[in-house]
């Protein structure tokens, strides 16, 4: 995540080699790039670039016919596909927002002097490592409208739970909540790492000045854990915009198309044999991710320099 910053740092040590620059250079041969570069080029760069071309064709993997922007027109005229675009944005924003807020809250709790911190941190982090499919299928059962554990528990408390995955209004949101459940542990440990790296002197000074807990959070923790916040936001956005596994495991885009996201539309069109249309979806997703993440990345790194 820190390419720009580190790239600048790496320039400095080079001064030690002033004496014999030409000889020294050959000790770090370019061919070390080669095996990785070949694999990356063939299996990532080529497909990415060719996707721009194939999105303009009608295509069956062996023959293609150039049809201009027809796939894109189809994509933006089909309301089911447009729902996918809208849902992708909602899903990314909801999961990202909740992960930031809840992750920060949990990190604050777990950096305060309470008992069993290590255990609680482990418990919150474990779902990060568990298979997305396993989590998805488990929550599918837990969210069962009538027999599921969640609605039964809510029923005991006198609340009538929603139909979760079966209700078109709640399906996408339900999956997003499970995504947060699974991913909040990662956000939490990143925030914890950010908070513990704040020098203790700040807290001691604020205690001397009689700052309240809220002031300590607002004036010290929040601004000084900004790099951690940046990382959480960017990771969560990238993950949220590209999300496929959980949605596919839990709803397959249903009921109807109400929880479809671009990634699931891409897969459905691919299954249906509309390869050009599927690839157009890929290009739309590519543009969406790039248009959101790259500017954000630049914005955050520039702000850090100002601090």
């Amino acid at each position, binding site marked *: *995540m*820190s390419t720009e910053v*580190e*790239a600048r740092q*790496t320039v400095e040590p080079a001064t030690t080699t002033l004496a014999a620059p030409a000889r020294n*250079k050959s000790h*770090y*041969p370019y061919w070390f790039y080669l*095996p*990785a*570069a070949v694999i*990356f080029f063939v*299996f*990532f760069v*080529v*497909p*990415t670039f060719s996707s721009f071309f194939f999105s303009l064709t009608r*295509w069956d*993997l062996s023959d293609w016919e150039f049809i201009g922007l027809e796939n894109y027109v189809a994509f933006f005229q089909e309301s089911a596909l447009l729902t996918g675009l809208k849902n992708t944005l909602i899903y990314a924003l909801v999961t990202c927002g909740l992960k930031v807020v809840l992750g920060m809250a949990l990190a604050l*709790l777990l950096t*305060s002097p*309470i*008992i*069993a*911190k290590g255990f609680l*941190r482990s*418990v919150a982090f*474990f779902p990060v*490592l*568990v*298979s*997305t*499919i*396993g989590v998805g*299928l*488990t929550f599918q*059962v*837990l969210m069962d409208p009538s*027999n599921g*554990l969640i609605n*039964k528990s809510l029923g005991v408390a006198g609340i009538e739970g929603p139909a979760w995955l079966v209700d078109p209004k709640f399906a996408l949101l339900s999956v997003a909540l499970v995504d947060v*459940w699974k991913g909040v542990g990662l956000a939490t440990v*990143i925030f914890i790492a*950010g908070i513990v*790296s704040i020098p203790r002197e700040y807290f001691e000074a604020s205690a001397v000045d009689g700052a309240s807990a809220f002031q300590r959070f607002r004036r010290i923790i929040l601004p000084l854990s*900004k790099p*951690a916040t940046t990382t959480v936001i960017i990771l969560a956005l990238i993950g949220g*915009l590209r999300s496929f*596994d959980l949605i*596919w495991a839990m709803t397959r885009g249903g009921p109807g198309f109400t929880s479809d996201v671009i*990634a699931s539309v891409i*897969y459905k069109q*691919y299954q249906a044999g509309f390869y050009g249309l*599927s*690839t157009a979806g*890929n290009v739309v*997703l590519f543009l969406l*991710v*790039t248009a959101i*993440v790259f500017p954000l990345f630049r914005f955050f790194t520039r702000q850090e320099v100002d601090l």
Partner: protein
Amino acid sequence: MRTKTHLWLGLLGIVLFAVVFLVPFAFILFTAAKTATEAGKLQFSLPTTWTLLQNFGDALRARDYMLIIAFINSIVLTVASITALVVLSAMVAYVLQRRESRWSGLVNMLVLSGLIIPPAVVPTVWVLQKLGLFKTLTGLIFIEIAFGLSFCILLFRAFIATIPRDLDEAAIIDGAGPTRLFFKVIFPLLRSVMVTVIIVQSVAIFNDFANPLYFLPGDENATVQLTVFNFQSQFNTQYNLLFADILLITIPPLLLFLFLNRRIVEGMTAGAVKG
């Protein structure tokens, strides 16, 4: 007074965390141990009779030992891709960190794009098909390598930056060529970050669902995630077997987690905090 509120806060935290994070796992375990009829009620309760081992056996035997074959496939996939990933990304990270040149900008940009850009599904299928690698484990191994490189390179590069160049120079004076310098001197020093890379990536690849779904469809060489996903439609009346499957694929990450918890957290937050 202060410590007392913290005690209560801690206890409240434990209860809340247990309900939110542990109950789902307890549910998996209990359901996996029930008989088919009892599991079908979807209740959160202790099984009246524990038939866990028998359910494991049934789940493993289902569809001609499909899950066992899938485990073998997943392990081959994970081990092969991780081995290649470690060696290849360490080589790239090493030259990238040590040798500033006009290529560095381009390489950095490619690394970053590999991290951000969603892979194009159908064009990748097309490339694999042209190479005769579509629906082969070899093809999927290459895919996992290509998609994992960026993350590994970033981790290795940050670590290599902390290895003093004096070491390189000492080895060079002793007459080590570039290949020996890297593989005999630098590579062994990367052990700690290597452990991190191996853990984080093996969890990611073992749990990967989308790439096997796209690039390795078909039953003959399914991976565990795909198998469990397909079992869902087959077992929808036998929740005990479905959850026995889920439990089985949760055990490998659980073992990793129990022994290497700290290492994993370190790895996943590495570099993150610096921005």
